[in-house]
């Protein structure tokens, strides 16, 4: 179970790429890809070196959003990505 104290990073063989032709961001991995929206990209880009909890604190402050909601959404997002093999956590 992923929790707020974990740090995540892209799994080996996974990369974040801008799809120029279709004007969107994608996560590319072995035999799979995931189309991601702006918020998901922001979460991934800001997750480097910080815990999920710290990431959520930052996002909640920046977007003046309820922390509990942000935490719930980010954990759900990262759990899905982990189960599909795009993310690893420590």
């Amino acid at each position, binding site marked *: 179970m992923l929790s707020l104290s974990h740090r995540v990073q892209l799994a080996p*063989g996974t990369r974040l790429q801008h*799809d120029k*032709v*279709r004007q969107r961001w*994608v996560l*590319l*991995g*072995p035999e799979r*890809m995931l189309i991601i929206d702006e918020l998901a990209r922001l979460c991934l880009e800001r997750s480097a070196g910080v815990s999920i909890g710290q990431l959520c604190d930052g996002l909640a402050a920046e977007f003046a959003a309820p922390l509990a909601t942000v935490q719930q959404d980010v954990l759900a997002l990262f759990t899905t990505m982990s189960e599909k093999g795009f993310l690893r956590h420590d």
Partner: protein
Amino acid sequence: MTDPTTSRLLEPPLAILLELTHRCPLRCAYCSNPLALTPASAELDTAGWREVLRQAADMGMLQVHFSGGEPMARADLVELVAYASELGLYSNLITSGVLLDAPRLAALQAAGLNHVQLSFQGQEETQAERLSGFRGGGAKKQAALTLVQQSGLALTLNFVITRSNAHELDAMLHYAEQHGIARVEVANTQYYGWGLQNRAALIPSEAQLDAMTATVTQWREQTRGRMVIDYVIPDYYARRPKACMGGWAQRFLNVMPDGTLLPCHAAQTLAHLQFPRVPHSTLAAAWYDSPAFAAYRGSSWMPEPCGGCEHKERDFGGCRCQALALAGSADTLDPVCERSPQHEQVVTLARREAQLGEQPYTLRSFSFSA
């Protein structure tokens, strides 16, 4: 260009699979290559493959799969991987591993290779050798696995499943877990090319399939978050056909060793279609303008009941090559679908073949003529 059946803009493919060569040290009885294998003399040269890669990237494709045959049999593989990286393509090497050594792997990694998929024909050596027609593969694959893991490259193990090794599935997954593998494919052989030729020797029984599904379900549960297991079943026992290639000419482009452009690796069995070939055609002309690629795209080609079926956007009418192979016409229902009048006949055929016990394989070879 717009797909007339959906009025949606036709997108470029997401991925391209290059059958760089049909040469391979293995002679697997389930090989998806066509019965008429392309000789080395007819393969595209390095400049030809570079041009294919350039056009693929230009069109907006994102991933390239280097496959074969054995792609490592091509002396220019490293150069092609490097060029794919330069173009921003995500590269995947689909290999048996038996030609992999430390210098080649280091060169591929330096060239920017993103992922390696290593195939295994079984845990039990005699059985694996019988299926692949190759002696000593087990040790070579183990060595390849070690090399890839030491390199830090992302690795998927592809376990090929037939009725003769289905009972080893649990041992295969144990092997993957012991090695800390993050992604596994449990790939039942598909019945195209040599696999179709050998179907009577390959197809598992429904009881074996049920046992496999239970094993996969259990392993997925206990390795959640650590190991991703992709599971491909033989669809003869299914009620609905598979969404073959994500729809005919919707997502994937396949290039044969001689540059023939196909919507899937088996499409050449549809002899009534004329498939374009590079350099005479560009990839874009094949994808957007060729009648062969348009033939089964969308749903306007569909017979009834497919045209009015609520599943048509999900399974796209199944597989055209399978409709031809099993029902005798590419324009009719994929008989794997329970709504096909031939469905019962196909299931009965599968059940009968699955009871045949150990059968001899026709191993793939260049001398075989269909």
